[in-house]
């Protein structure tokens, strides 16, 4: 049997990073995700696997360290929470523009501004619509348990390297801080330099006589080339949309109504479903696991089955826009959410369903 541990979500991210054979983590403290860096520092992964862990002078420096490390083909990552992720946007758009694989973890807290240190889901737009300047997308994974916090680290790197694209784990302060049982995977070895050169021939590993020099940049001053490059990026995002949509359905088979929620909200909705069904209301849940790519196709199929959809988000309503686009306005789609660090209760979600959709 696999090893089981009781861990915080943030600790699961850190342990998973070591076990996934990550080469470097560059971070900066911010509540509610500081345990990632704390756990790594106490584990001394340089002794376990040779992994580099560095506390940077700012979130800006940390993401640019990720940029530098990713360009050399290494598995590198950072984590932060909302205000820190805003600071990182410059680096993220460069990384996306230079088509580099890496992992960014956002343990979301309420905003805007300094906001609160309590959990929220109000960084959805920033995560799935780009975040920084220019036309780009991140691969966005939304864990709803500590186990998924753990599992998605390795998955994020697999996808990031498959598409040469930065991946983001969009979590929140609740999942980051909560403790759950986690099944720990076996230690993956870190890639050797030879493996990296073979796998990522584009990486800046030192120019050898057998190849031209490698350049990692997001700059092209020739408009026709820059447009061509942008088309290439868009084609890549289409490919990701085609191949990588992930979601979970709960009690949708006979559902007449549907919740759409991810992360912490999706956990609340599961209880709301039980309460609703006890009252004879047949409601199910679609939980997007990938927020980009979004499960639009499946939602459109479900829109032919259900009479209405309620999205539940800890925000003013962001994902609801993508749900509306997905169902092409064929059925009513409403939003229910709490803000400022408040997690909605199952009862209030049920009431919202009854008042807004039924």
């Amino acid at each position, binding site marked *: 049997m696999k090893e089981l541990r009781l861990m915080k979500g943030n600790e699961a991210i850190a342990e998973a990073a070591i076990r996934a054979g990550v080469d470097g983590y560059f971070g900066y403290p911010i509540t509610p995700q500081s345990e990632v860096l704390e756990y790594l520092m106490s584990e001394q992964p340089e002794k376990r696997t040779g992994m580099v862990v560095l506390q*940077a002078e700012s979130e800006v420096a*940390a993401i*640019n360290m990720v940029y530098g490390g990713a360009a050399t083909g290494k598995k590198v990552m950072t984590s932060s929470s909302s205000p820190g992720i805003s600071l990182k946007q410059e680096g993220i758009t460069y990384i996306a523009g230079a088509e580099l694989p890496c992992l960014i973890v956002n343990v979301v807290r309420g905003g805007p501004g300094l906001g609160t240190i309590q959990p929220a889901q109000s960084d959805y737009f920033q995560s799935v619509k780009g975040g920084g300047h220019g036309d780009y997308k991140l691969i966005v994974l939304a864990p709803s348990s500590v186990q998924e916090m753990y599992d998605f680290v390795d998955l994020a790197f697999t996808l990031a390297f498959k598409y040469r694209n930065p991946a983001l784990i969009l979590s929140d302060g609740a999942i980051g801080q909560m403790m759950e049982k986690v099944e720990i995977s076996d230690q993956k070895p870190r890639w050797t330099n030879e493996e990296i050169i073979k796998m990522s021939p584009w990486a*800046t590993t*030192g120019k050898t006589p057998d190849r031209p020099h*490698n350049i990692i940049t997001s*700059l092209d001053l020739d408009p026709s080339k820059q447009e061509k490059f942008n088309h290439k990026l868009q084609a890549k995002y289409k490919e990701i949309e085609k191949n990588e949509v992930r979601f979970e359905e709960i009690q949708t088979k006979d559902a007449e109504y549907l919740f759409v929620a991810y992360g912490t909200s999706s956990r609340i909705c599961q209880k709301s479903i039980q309460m609703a069904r006890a009252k004879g209301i047949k409601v199910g849940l679609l939980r997007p696991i990938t927020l980009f790519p979004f499960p639009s196709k499946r939602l459109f199929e479900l829109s032919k089955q259900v009479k209405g959809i309620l999205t539940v988000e800890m925000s003013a309503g962001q994902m609801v826009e993508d749900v509306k686009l997905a169902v092409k306005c064929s059925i009513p789609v409403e939003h229910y959410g709490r803000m400022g660090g408040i997690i909605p209760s199952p009862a209030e979600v049920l009431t919202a369903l009854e008042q807004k959709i039924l």
Partner: protein
Amino acid sequence: MAEKITTNDIVKEENLVFRKTPLFIDKPLSYCPGCGHGVAHRLVLETIEEMGIQSETIGVAPVGCSVLAYEFMDIDMQQAAHGRAPALATAIKRLHPEKFVFTYQGDGDLAAIGTAETIHACNRGENITIIFINNGIYGMTGGQMAPTTLPGMKSSTSPYGRDIKTMGNPLKITELVAQLPGTYYVTRQAVHTPGAVRKAKKAIRMAFENQKLNKGVSFVEIVSNCNSGWKMEPVQANEWMVENMFPFFPLGDIKVPAEQK
């Protein structure tokens, strides 16, 4: 003298004493006529050639006039966001301690927007080389005031001269980083005369050799011209630099390791 020696007699492979290093990619440089960047590029590349470390070197280009440095240097290079080159270099070196890692940055990049990255990479004692070109102006964007613009010096955003009361003082960041325990070798050079170029070359060579010792940052400032930004002829710009820049940014070593004195 038996016969007159002609140019054809002299121009033969066996008489070659100087040629452009093959690491300098054969395309026209994007710099203005007379700009010191070209010489600084050449010295970095000659150093890499002479040390035989082309396959072990990773460079980081900045934002500014030398944003396209990677177009001319036949080594693996990355282009950093404005000011962030030392952060990139930190990670590259930590992940590849066996490689030679350098940044090539201008004054706006290194001493304004990237001040935090510069100071902290220097203070952590990252085992990297920083080449810092200081021409006292933002050249790329059209000659705006830089952190190193001299008091009273005119630029497009200080058209009546830099007024230190309202615009602040020029920053001697090289003296500043020399104070940090993480810097191992800090020097200020120039490339406007043959003698200065030979000295700058020695400094750059030492700054790269130092990476073998793993003792911290080697920091080479090169005070250079920006004849377009200064609105002068190239030769006149070099003279102006000697008269005005050097008194404020005096050339010479600022911090030399005891064992290399």
